[in-house]
């Protein structure tokens, strides 16, 4: 399917001083289009520079600017190419590219750019430091179905929910039935008046009855001998506070439903009140910071682990920095509901409620994974295994104050949180039998 392409992945600020290996490899690539290197080293600071080349934009401004239609974007591999025979050398594309990634060849008086060596990327093959690689979209393509969510939805800027819902629906497809409830996702998933923003059938639940509603729906289909995929998609308050009883009951009974809890660590739709997944010390509007208040005084519930201890067929954690991991878990969960309840705990930072910059939410996801604060694992009938393990644990202190809900924390406070993270990770390792 078009739309999901292999990309050249370049780690930023990761090139050693004076390294030019990729540039040389690019200049020497075997291609009839080779008019010299189209990758370059950028960055002013000598010890923190990066390789950079064309991003193969989804809506290339160079293509728009070209007066002779010499530039095309391939539906097949997503690469933006310049037809040497059609290029008139006007340099409109050079001026149009906001990233300055079109190279003008003065000798031949035509423009040229990276075409990823048609998928073989000489730079990636040559880089001795693991900075450049080709990121294959094949796993993503495998899972992706139709986009079932409206292009415009009512979420805060930078909110993870649009990505979470769009991606979840793309993977699971149109024939699921969504069970949603009062939460951040409610205005989108359970419609407003006569308008609904997703193409799937949906059922608006109470906060107390999401799993039991989905279970009842599934039971009728069981009675008539038809397969169905009820998918609960609700927040952490619904899941771990007011709605935990019916979720636990549904898991115990082995109801054939998929339950996804998107965890934004509080009641974020209604003004950032604390929930049972709000971390220790975090500011919320009901765990204020003042002369006596120091944020939330208690630990969060480890809900995913609680669900795994129900010995239900499938439980997993996932987040949006690791989409392939999430996609594969969705697929497994959908399969697992033939045997019982499947549960996915999806970490989704809330820029508004956490006071986190809207462009930092995916980075936050990555940070909690790399720090073991939100380990990625799955469990079949309670047997836990990690699906990703950071090579080097990132300390909480290095990123936690990105979310200003933690801005009041002292070094000791952060140390206490770090110890909690380490304690839980060690417990998980023991359960997984890896230590």
């Amino acid at each position, binding site marked *: 399917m078009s739309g999901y392409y292999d990309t050249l992945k370049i780690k930023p600020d990761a090139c050693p001083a004076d390294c030019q290996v990729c540039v040389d490899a690019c200049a020497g690539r075997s291609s009839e289009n080779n008019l010299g290197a189209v990758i370059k080293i950028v960055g002013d600071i000598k010890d923190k520079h990066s390789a950079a080349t064309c991003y193969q934009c989804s809506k290339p401004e160079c293509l728009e600017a070209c007066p002779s239609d010499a530039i095309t974007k391939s539906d097949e591999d997503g690469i933006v190419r310049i037809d040497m025979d059609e290029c008139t050398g006007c340099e409109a594309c050079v001026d149009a590219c906001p990233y300055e990634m079109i190279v003008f060849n003065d000798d031949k008086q035509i423009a040229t750019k990276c075409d990823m060596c048609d998928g073989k990327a000489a730079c990636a093959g040559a880089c001795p430091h693991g900075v450049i690689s080709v990121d294959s979209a094949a796993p993503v393509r495998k899972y992706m179905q139709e986009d079932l969510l409206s292009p415009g939805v009512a979420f805060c800027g930078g909110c993870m929910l649009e990505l979470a819902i769009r991606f979840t629906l793309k993977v699971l497809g149109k024939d699921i039935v969504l069970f949603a409830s009062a939460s951040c996702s409610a205005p989108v998933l359970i419609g407003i008046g006569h308008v609904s923003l997703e193409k799937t059938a949906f059922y608006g639940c*109470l906060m107390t009855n999401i799993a039991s509603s989905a279970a009842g729906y599934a039971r009728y289909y069981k009675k008539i001998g038809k397969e169905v995929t009820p998918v609960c998609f609700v927040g952490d308050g619904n899941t771990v506070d007011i709605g935990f009883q019916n979720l636990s009951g549904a898991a115990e009974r082995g109801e054939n439903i998929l339950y996804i809890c998107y965890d934004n660590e509080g009641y974020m739709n209604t003004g950032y009140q604390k929930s049972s997944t709000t971390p220790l010390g975090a500011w919320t509007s009901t765990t204020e910071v003042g002369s006596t208040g120091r944020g939330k005084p208690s630990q969060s519930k480890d809900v995913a682990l609680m669900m795994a201890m129900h010995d239900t067929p499938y439980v997993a954690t996932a987040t949006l920095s690791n989409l392939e991991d999430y996609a594969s878990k969705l697929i497994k969960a959908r399969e697992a509901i033939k045997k019982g309840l499947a549960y996915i705990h999806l970490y989704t930072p809330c820029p508004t409620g956490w006071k986190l910059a809207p462009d930092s939410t995916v980075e936050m996801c990555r940070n909690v994974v790399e720090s073991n604060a939100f380990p990625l694992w799955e469990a079949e009938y309670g047997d836990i295994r990690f699906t990703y393990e950071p090579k080097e644990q990132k300390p909480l202190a290095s990123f936690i104050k990105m979310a200003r809900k933690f801005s009041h924390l002292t070094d000791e406070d952060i140390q206490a949180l770090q110890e909690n993270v380490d304690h839980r990770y060690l417990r998980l390792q023991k359960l997984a039998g890896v230590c």
Partner: protein
Amino acid sequence: MSTKSEVSAETKGERRVLTGNAAAAYGALLSRPDVVALYPITPQSEVVETLSKFYANGMLDAEMIQVEGENSAMSSIMAASVAGGRVFTATSSWGLAFMYDAVLMAAGMRIPAVMVNVNREMPGIYSVSCSRQDIMSVRDAGWIQIEVETTQEVLDTVIMAYRLAEDSEILLPTMVSYDGYYLSFMSEDMEIPPQDYADRFLAVLKEQPERLKLVPGGPLGFHAHALLEDFMEYRYKHCAALERAKTKIDQVEQEFEAIFGRKYGGVLEEYRCEDADIVLLTMGSSTGTARVAVDSKREQGIKVGLVKLRMLRPFPKEKIASVLKDKKAVGIIDRSVNFGWNSGHVYTEVQSALFGVDTNVKLLDYITGIASLDITIDHLERAIDEAYAASQGKEYKDVSWLPLE
């Protein structure tokens, strides 16, 4: 529950001695529900146990969800109904309170569920005893509510409730309630009608326009956020459907009588009312005692009749007004307390029904039988005597607490 059975010559049904709870379970069984969700609570547990036996014996061809609480019972059957199924549950008192948000949702969603409620005191003062405080607490939920008197009526009304709930002109959740500890555990000789009677009686529903269903891949969502005039229109239509139920119940009963040979009077049953000057108004299990009291007072020459109120919601205000307006006095037997009015609930309901009606009828309210206190013949004869005295122009007390006052 007796295990001895015999076939009745008249109806080919099976005659059994059954409790009210077992009768409720048989009513559900004969209605062939697709999904049954249950959670046990005294004094309803026998309903759950009996249906569980039916299920284990292969008699009940339904998905049986043994939920972890009443909220999930109501919630599961709501979604199963939206999927397209016929659904059943049963509860009582504290359980009804625990499913309250789902009870409201079922009404707003116009879910054609049938639920049995076995009347019991609500939490507040810890009590394991009968009253109708529980069903009165959901008067404003938007359900159809019917209170019944005998075990036979329990079974028959459960079946009839599906004809009300699932009727395309109604589509409302319907509650069949009966007094816990009295009717729930009382055993009576009764008939379990043949399955094909129930099938024939309920087959009409299949000929009606198919109700909207939530279908995978389909274009519909359910329980979306309703706004402004849309919301008001839903409420308007809901109330209109409740009004239609007041006459629909007569039509349903007529058809029931044609097949089963029994009837209960629709919204209310009158007993010796025609020439009566005064009337006792009861609900549910104490009605039998009231008949005895009425008969005994008739022998003494007092022209007393009896009204058994069956339909609590929608409240049959027109029928109540037409039956009571020409009477001189009415003694109302209330088995619940209407806080803030210092009366029973039925009393204020009847007062409202008579407002604006050209009548001089005097209403005397008797709060009795709460906390499983017996409603005795003495109580009812006192009510008749006092109503009679009031009808003769004597002074009377609006509300009396029996046996305290």
